[in-house]
């Protein structure tokens, strides 16, 4: 198992490397002159030229990339000109907040999605199945940011059960209880779409597995239906669902962009939106790079879990 994980980690290196190239190229393709963007349209040509030199933009693309990646290894992603602080500091701080939000949402959607999917499959065409199918359809058909707004209206404004925004209370907060209180609404909102997707796939996977010969064997052994479904069938279904959960991690982190904006969660998503509208491109670059790398690692983790479940993959 250890050797397998090491092998997968090694295989992830070229992917991460490719990510740096894409992220770098996207930023290099930006039309217009960053120096002009930074200095404004009234800048003198001398100032523009000086800033270009400072930013290393007078060099070839390849040289720029080598310098950029060299700095990356030193932990230097440049300096955000709007915040006037190192990009890496800002990105890491923001990313922690996003991880808390997205991690909770991912946990929530895995549990709820698997549960709903299994119930749906076991009660196929029954009332529970129909209700879940409809809920799932509703869940994946409406914008998550809209659901967020509705939840704020109901639970924060009218019922006053949860705070409407932020990560901690401004006065007297800061402990875990306060965090969970603030986390409830955004994490739930963020998990809904992924829950639907996972529930759907779990249902199909369970129905497929329940047709397999080894399920008949389990029944022929005289096992209880509970063991047949929750031990034998569920483990097989899980093998095909785990990679989907890995992919959903990407959607959850991406979806965090909306949810963080709606709930004013101080995460990387809301940072990116602000950075894009203020054209703070170094900040965008750093943010995208960190999130994409995390996504690669999430998928890697999903692969490893899948391999742990299925001995045939080892």
């Amino acid at each position, binding site marked *: 198992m250890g050797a397998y994980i090491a092998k997968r980690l090694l295989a992830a290196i070229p992917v991460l490397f490719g990510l740096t190239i894409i992220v770098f190229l*996207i930023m290099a*393709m930006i039309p217009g002159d960053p120096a002009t963007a930074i200095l404004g349209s009234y800048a003198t040509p001398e100032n523009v030229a000086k800033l270009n030199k400072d930013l290393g933009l007078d060099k070839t693309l390849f040289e720029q990339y080598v310098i950029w990646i060299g700095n990356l290894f030193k932990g230097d992603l440049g300096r955000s000109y709007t915040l006037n602080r190192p990009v890496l500091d800002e990105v890491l701080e923001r990313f922690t907040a996003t991880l808390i939000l997205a991690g909770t949402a991912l946990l929530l959607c895995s549990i709820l999605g698997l549960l709903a999917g299994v119930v749906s499959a076991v009660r196929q065409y029954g009332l529970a199945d129909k209700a879940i199918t409809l809920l799932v359809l509703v869940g994946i058909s409406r*914008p998550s940011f*809209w659901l967020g707004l509705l939840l704020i209206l109901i639970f924060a404004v009218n019922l006053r059960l949860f705070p409407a925004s932020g990560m901690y209370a401004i006065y007297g907060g800061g402990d875990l209880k306060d965090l969970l209180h603030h986390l409830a609404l955004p994490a739930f909102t963020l998990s809904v779409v992924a829950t639907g997707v996972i529930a759907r796939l779990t249902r199909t996977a369970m129905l497929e597995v329940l047709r*397999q010969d080894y399920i008949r064997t389990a029944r022929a052994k005289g096992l209880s239906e509970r063991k047949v479904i929750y031990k034998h069938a569920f483990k097989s279904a899980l093998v095909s669902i785990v990679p989907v959960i890995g992919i959903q991690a990407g959607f959850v982190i991406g979806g965090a*962009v909306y949810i963080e904006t709606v709930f004013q969660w101080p995460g990387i998503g809301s940072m990116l939106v602000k950075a894009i509208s203020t054209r703070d491109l170094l900040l965008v670059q750093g943010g995208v790079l960190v999130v994409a790398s995390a996504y690669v690692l999430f998928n890697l983790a999903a692969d490893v879990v899948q391999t742990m479940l299925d*001995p045939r993959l080892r």
Partner: protein
Amino acid sequence: MTDATMTAPVKAKKKPAGRPSTLALLFNNTLATVGLVILALICLTALAAPLLPLPDPDVTAPANRLMPVFSDGHLLGTDHLGRDLLSRLIWGTRVSLAVGLSATVIAAFFGSLLGLVAGYAGGRVDTLIMRGIDMVMAFPYILLALAIVAVLGPGLLNALYAIALVNIPFFARNIRGITLGLSRREFVDAARLAGKSPPQILFIEILPNVLPVIVITMSTTVGWMVLETAGLSFLGLGAQPPQADLGSMLGEGRKILFTAPHVSIIPGLMIFALVMSINLLGDGIRDILDPRLRAGSLTRPVARTKVIRDPKDIPPPSLEPGVLDVRDMRTEFQIGGSVYKAVGGVDLHLKKGECIGIIGESGSGKSVTAMSVMGLVPTPPGRIVGGAAYLNGEDLFGASDKRVRDLRGGSVAYVFQDPLSTLHPLFTVGDQLIEAIQAHQPLSGSEAKEKAIELLSLVRIPNAPERLSAYPHELSGGMRQRVCIAMALANDANVLIADEPTTALDVTVQSQILTLMNGLRRERDAAILFITHDFGVVSALCDRVAVMYAGRIVETGVTAEVLANPQHPYTAKLIDCVPVLGQPERRTDAIEGRPPVVNNLPDGCAFADRCPRVQTACRVGLIELEMANETRGVSCLFPMNKELRDDQAS
């Protein structure tokens, strides 16, 4: 524009009478119809926007700001600038629909093109394109769209490009897979040999076949695209004022959420209605086009075969003593509108320590007979419609689920055909054995483990203790089948039902398994019901044999007698099929024709159409199994030992 009408030209071929068209099936699906109607209404309203008597959506009237729903002259109220919300909603829907559809078309066009080229060209081109696609897919989807908007700058058109671009990989992957399969097909080879150029082949031969898949993929992604463009606009990165789509309306409304919630709730509802109707329709289309769902093969089988029999018509057990006594058992499958009579009234009588072979071609109902006994035929589509099976005098079809579960693997154990698919791939051999033991015996973990080792040694598996931690795929086919047999022996069963246990194995392994089973039968005095299609196997193991054809037993008797003197022409033909070592000149004729389909059995003898001795009388009425003595019987009007007179020949 609906997806159903888009598929229509592709499937313009005449449909065979009696099968409902795709469109008719769509209307049978209530949810899909609802989706279609809502979508059509939204689309028509959006298209008709310039013709409707609506106020200008962009004219501000600060005096009338934030009027509530159902106000005079403003059905849905006004926003923070006093603009009419209904008008803005309809115009915004127009924009959202147009952007969502355009993004879908662009993504479908470029994605499919990449997929077609990669799938058809193969080799280095394929690798290059697909690695690029993988790279793009390594980004979380929305993040990539954000990065693209960051580069291009905020704006509706840029948002459209971004959404289209991030969806290209999805199409490329799907279409490449299909193209790869198609490009190896005969008609493509034929076109190549006819001297057509690659673009000609790609667009004239392959594209029409890929088109339905493109349409399905579009119908499942267009909902996402509408949502995502709305999302970008909500963040202020899409539509810029004064232009508005549903997303930017929501985004503007959000700022006044607490004072005037209707300004953000209304556009949200519209997005929801739009995407929901698209998804309902898309699901409907997918369900109709997915062959698995059509065949009902994704229906969950219940724990035990459904029994529907007339309580007044349950045959009593026979008077002779026996462990397993099957009386007039009938099992059917209901698939679509037709009923397949897989087992049409079978009697079997199994004494202690006896081995009966059931032999027949594929589809003769022999496996279904074996599965029916303990209710292992999947329901749906299977069901037992008559007869009885008595185990030591107890009616199995009338027993409670709990009782059947106790007997399964306890008194009656099964060995199935392919040990690779019948063992659970994710549990070790030991886990599966211990589970079988503990299902019926109150043993502790270590006791059960000891017993498992004992069982593995019993079926002659070397290094039994180490093998416990092996997974099924790590064992050879013969070893796996030994494990299955060990599992069947775990609880000292009275009856062993073996469904072609040697068919998937090598010949040498086959004989080992047969010797093993024969030895175990003698040691433990268990009765065996042995299903096979091989007379060689029957003669090696079985005391008696029953020959099945089209769901009925056509001949039965002591194995040696049947082999030496077959009476049913079908039995005779089956025996002729067995090659004999040292007799190369022996003719091993295949039996001409095929067994009849059991949903439409002919009157009279089911074998009549393939029988060399068929007479007119063979095609009338029901031909019963006539028992000559206690063991020997045949259901044939003109058995092999009876001379045919010339005037009877047809």
